[in-house]
């Protein structure tokens, strides 16, 4: 067909940045595996990954560092993807996964569980339930009204977030001092809470498979609801799909690592500055770049002032803010 050549042009134009991002992701994972209390040389790392090498290194890499690195990668990927979707849903480049108050609900529930002295697993479970409660409240409030607009959804979410914020401050104020560090780490986002990496990775891959066929439709939705409808998009069902999907991704991410900030807002933005706004490219690129950023940030978080660990959310912001400002100043 005559389409083939143009088709190829647009595909290769998209594939190159994705290949670079995939390479960066692998590199970030390798760094995460090699660095820590005991440094591991590249050749030894390769040996361990191939099933040989030192037995101590085997345990260190395969049982301790690999699950955490993968969990960090998956969490970052989910947050960046959720951010990209939320920005399209709300037609607001300033939206992030937490803008609709979801992390607030998760945080309140998690802090309550911590206050009750619950185990790590229970805290994560509570966070997930809290996130779902928040989603349902925002969904119910915004859905119940007649005239539904992204602005209305955004306002509902922002006000919910403010309410959760007040509850969080209240909980922190009345909590015993010895529990505060754990709570603050959770609020800032901390991979030490992550269990098995497979839920986040699985959800990340599954959600990418769901949104990729929607890519071109999302490009049209980014031009506004009316324009999208005029071009044949069933706007309302698409918007609710986006809302529920982005919320679910965020809930899984928050359950894994607390509310890690910055990734969901800035990663899609940085990519748009470089790659334009074709969601067929931005969505998979967000997944890879978000994962890479959080993997690197978590490696720094556990090595920078070792043996003490920093909350990873601090690092994502410290790494991301200057690089974002740099990209912004260089863009047109």
């Amino acid at each position, binding site marked *: 067909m005559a389409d083939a050549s143009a*088709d190829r042009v647009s595909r290769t134009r998209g594939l190159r940045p994705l290949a670079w991002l995939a390479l960066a992701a692998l590199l970030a994972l390798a760094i995460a595996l090699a660095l820590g209390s005991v440094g591991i040389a590249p050749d030894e790392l390769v040996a361990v990954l191939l099933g040989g090498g030192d037995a101590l290194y085997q345990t260190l890499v395969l049982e301790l560092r690999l699950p955490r690195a993968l969990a960090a990668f998956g969490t970052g990927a989910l947050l960046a993807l959720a951010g990209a979707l939320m920005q399209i849903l709300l037609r607001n*480049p300033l939206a992030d996964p937490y803008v609709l108050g979801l992390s607030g609900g998760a945080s309140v529930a998690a802090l309550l569980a911590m206050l009750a002295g619950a185990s790590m697993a229970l805290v994560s479970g509570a966070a997930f339930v809290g996130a779902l409660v928040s989603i349902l409240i925002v969904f119910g409030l915004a859905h119940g009204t007649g005239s539904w607009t992204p602005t209305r959804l955004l306002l509902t979410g922002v006000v919910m977030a403010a309410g959760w914020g007040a509850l969080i401050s209240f909980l922190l104020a009345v909590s015993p001092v010895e529990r505060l560090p754990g709570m603050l780490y959770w609020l800032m986002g901390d991979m030490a809470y992550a269990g098995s990496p497979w839920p986040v990775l699985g959800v990340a891959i599954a959600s990418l498979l769901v949104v990729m066929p929607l890519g*071109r*439709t999302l490009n049209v939705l*980014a*031009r506004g609801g009316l324009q999208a409808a*005029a071009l*044949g*998009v069933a706007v309302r069902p698409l918007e609710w799909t986006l809302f529920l999907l982005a919320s679910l991704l965020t809930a899984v991410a928050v359950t894994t690592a607390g509310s890690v900030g910055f990734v969901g807002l800035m990663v899609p933005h940085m990519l748009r500055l470089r790659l334009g706004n*074709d969601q067929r490219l931005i969505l998979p690129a967000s997944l890879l770049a978000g994962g890479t950023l959080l993997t690197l940030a978590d490696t720094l978080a556990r090595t920078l002032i070792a043996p003490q660990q920093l909350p990873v959310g601090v690092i994502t912001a410290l790494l991301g803010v200057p690089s974002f400002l740099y990209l912004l100043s260089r863009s047109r």
Partner: protein
Amino acid sequence: MAISEPQIETLEARELVIDIPGRPAGRPLYLRIAPGERWGVLGPNGAGKTTLMHTLAGLRAPRSGEVRLGGKPLSRLKRRELARRLGIVFQTHHDDFPATVRETALIGRHPFIAPWQQEGAEDIARAQAALERLDLTPLAERELATLSGGERQRVSLATLLTQAPRFWLADEPTNHLDLHHQVAVMELLAEQADQGCGVVMCLHDLNLAARWCSHLLLLYPDGEACWGAADSMLVPAALEGLYGQALTTAMVDGAPVFVPKR
């Protein structure tokens, strides 16, 4: 069923009352827009021109009555199917995200491409031809944010030309345009009508309406309306009543020209 279907595809308003909150129903509209016709919608600010356009495009539910395309109510057509046959240029644009002129023209092909397919060479060629038609080829790679108001308006028209629907709705298509491009756009719309499209446009310029429209619909702020062939509607007294503005009329090149009195 098939026997009662009209022979030519038309866009029809049947007993249509557009929904403007707080306004009495006014006069229901019975419009039949046929291929080749160029309808102009005139009325003062707030008369409901944009609401009517959105209602005719199926983007807004009417208060009562219905809009039919090819004999079928819009509410029974799939959005995608509708978008292949009817398109609209909006008065306002939402350029919240970066996009180039070429990408923006290309979204006109969206209703024709299956979800799993990419834009092919034919789609790109159509967008390119539309950009060329609206003098936008030199701007093809520019970001929308860098365009002037008139250039942005032409991009919207290029998107609709790429979409190439049977029915064209244009909400103030000459907004922001310089004199030359006003005429160029009216020529484009007339050319589409000659090729068998039905065209409806909201206009504020009586003289463009007098020169380019075959039919006119006058919308009054209280919901009153009248419509018909352009010649019969261009009565100075009616137009003065429509806008609440005294007019001077002159004949230039065989067509009436209306100038507001000071």
